[in-house]
């Protein structure tokens, strides 16, 4: 631990607290709390989406994966970006046109049943918690390393910070923390990439020639297949990456913070540019780390490669850049976790309490109170789980969250907007089949069972061969919705006509 690191960390913390203070003064209604009053501009929401999406797994994880595995690490960058085409073409605008605060609100446009809302809330909570544990475990490891404090204390610091943002500042504070973080993160990426390119005299061909010689993998470093040797496993992972984003509750929630579908669209465009540039730059970080930090040093700092980016910053820019990048990584984790708390809390307070228990008759004051209690509860739950999850692999937890989102949420969204015959039973079966097939298959997979002791949660032979089961669980989610619809009689074509008209024109009776 050194003074520069501490000062920069404190600066970030103070900056975000100032944002929270001003946001708290503006947060007066439930709409403010969940969706910043729906008043964000397109570009603001776009940058905030990038801030929400570019998590520690992207920043630290992908840089490390490229540094260690070359092309196979770059797979993540491609999948995470193309995912935004799915969001833009199929999901963003209908979602904004039909929804209010949560995914369940959007499904409500077609289905009144509480069980639909309940299932959607269950999915949102499950995905948010898995994703949040991943971020907290990553944060704990990073801060533990930087400050030399125990893991539990590191998790607690991040946990308390995120709770403060969400509890007092709601979506307004969360959005601005994400915007600030996205700007800092991009600045850090550009600086490091520039320094890496400078070392190669801005000759990209030279860079490729060089990294071919510096790692223990030699020429194979530039070829696919270093990490992902099972073809179906690779394809399955790519399915989870590209389809998962469109089902991630904290990303979906961001589309309710703008006033209409047109603004939702422009925010996806901004987000896609920012995120795309970010993922191109991951390549320079990864190659730079391989060339200037070295495989052995990266592995020595962290076996998962998670310290590659901060170590590269230190190698190129000395202590100050190292401190800056570490502080940015910290801000990254805070921003993402705050968004996740908010989406988990909205499912608890808005869907389960406000709509199912109180039947939508809770006063605004009651709803606000419920939202804050729920935020607190979600934070505490995630902190406790993260304390027990210290030795779980972060990338595994993130890809699991993507897989559940793709299997449990995407089928129901697509069917609701695009399939006339889809009905209440279909909606419930689609969500539950997707959720449970993803969870059950993962629990039987090599990520949980490994014959090598210590490599996974339990020792034993995996029953299911793929670490990421999206190849099977996503089709099962779609199939579940299809069969559930066929085997029941309910359904209203009149209601679908309304949904279709509203989803495609943006028409709203209340003007809200």
């Amino acid at each position: 631990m050194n003074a520069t690191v501490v000062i920069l960390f404190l600066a970030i913390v103070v900056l975000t607290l100032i944002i929270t203070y001003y946001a708290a003064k503006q947060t007066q209604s439930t709409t403010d709390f969940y969706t910043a009053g729906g008043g964000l501009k397109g570009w603001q929401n776009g940058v905030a989406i990038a801030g929400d999406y570019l998590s520690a797994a992207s920043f630290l994880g992908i840089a490390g994966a490229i540094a260690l595995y070359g092309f196979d690490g770059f797979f993540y960058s491609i999948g995470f970006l193309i995912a935004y085409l799915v969001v833009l073409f199929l999901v963003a605008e209908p979602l904004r046109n039909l929804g209010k605060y949560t995914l369940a609100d959007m499904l409500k446009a077609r289905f009144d049943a509480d069980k639909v809302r309940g299932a959607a809330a269950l999915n949102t909570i499950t995905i948010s918690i898995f994703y949040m544990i991943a971020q907290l475990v990553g944060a704990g490891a990073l801060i533990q390393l930087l400050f030399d404090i125990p893991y539990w204390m590191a998790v607690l610091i991040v946990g308390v910070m995120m709770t403060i943002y969400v509890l007092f500042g709601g979506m307004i504070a969360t959005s601005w923390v994400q915007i600030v973080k996205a700007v800092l993160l991009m600045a850090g990426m550009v600086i490091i990439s520039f320094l890496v390119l400078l070392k190669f005299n801005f000759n990209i061909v030279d860079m490729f020639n060089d990294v071919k010689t510096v790692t223990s993998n030699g020429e194979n470093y530039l070829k696919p297949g270093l990490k992902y040797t099972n073809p179906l496993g690779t394809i399955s992972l790519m399915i989870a990456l590209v389809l998962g984003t469109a089902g991630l509750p904290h990303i979906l929630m961001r589309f309710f913070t703008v006033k209409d579908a047109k603004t939702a669209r422009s925010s996806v465009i901004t987000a896609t540019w920012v995120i795309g540039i970010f993922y191109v730059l991951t390549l320079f970080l990864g190659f730079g780390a391989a060339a200037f930090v070295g495989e052995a040093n990266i592995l020595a700092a962290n076996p998962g490669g998670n310290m590659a980016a901060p170590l590269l910053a230190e190698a190129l820019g000395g202590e100050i850049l190292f401190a800056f990048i570490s502080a940015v990584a910290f801000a990254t984790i805070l921003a993402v976790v705050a968004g996740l708390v908010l989406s988990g809390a909205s499912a608890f307070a808005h869907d389960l309490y406000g709509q199912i228990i109180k039947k939508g008759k809770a006063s605004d004051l009651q709803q606000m109170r419920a939202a804050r209690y729920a935020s607190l509860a979600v934070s505490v739950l995630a902190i406790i789980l993260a304390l027990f999850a210290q030795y779980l692999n972060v990338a595994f937890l993130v890809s699991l969250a993507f897989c559940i989102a793709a299997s449990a949420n995407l089928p129901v969204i697509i069917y609701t907007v695009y399939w006339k015959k889809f009905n209440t039973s279909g909606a419930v079966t689609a969500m539950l089949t997707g959720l449970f097939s993803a969870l059950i298959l993962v629990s039987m997979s090599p990520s949980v069972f490994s014959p090598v002791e210590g490599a996974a949660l339990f020792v034993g032979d995996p029953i299911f061969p793929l670490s990421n089961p999206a190849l099977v669980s996503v089709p099962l989610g779609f199939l579940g919705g299809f069969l559930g619809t066929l085997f029941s009689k309910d359904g209203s074509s009149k209601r679908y006509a309304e949904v279709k008209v509203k989803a495609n024109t943006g028409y709203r009776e209340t003007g809200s």
Partner: protein
Amino acid sequence: MSNVNDYKADENTDERIDFVKVEQSEKFQWLMDERKRFIVPLTIFFLVFYFMLPILTSYTTFLNTPVIGDISWVWLFAFSQFVMTWVLCTIYVKKAASFDRQADEIINEQLNSNNKGGNAG
């Protein structure tokens, strides 16, 4: 704006508007056809283009042929995915502007005229 009222509005579907009639109107059908003609082929295109990458790298090795220095086809294919994303985004925005105009016409002609109290979102 009170949120309690929003909830009430959400509870009841609007009976004053015949959405089935709007849905079957020529203009709306035309909008849907245009949307479908635009979105379906492009969605299939980008998904195929995307999944070609892991399929080709998993089952073939010809992408490993170097093109520029040590940069092989697989890297160029990977970068083309980024370019494709940005190009499709730009095309989508252009096209969506014309969908917006058609949607606004439908709202003004068929929805707002039936519904005195409401306004378009």
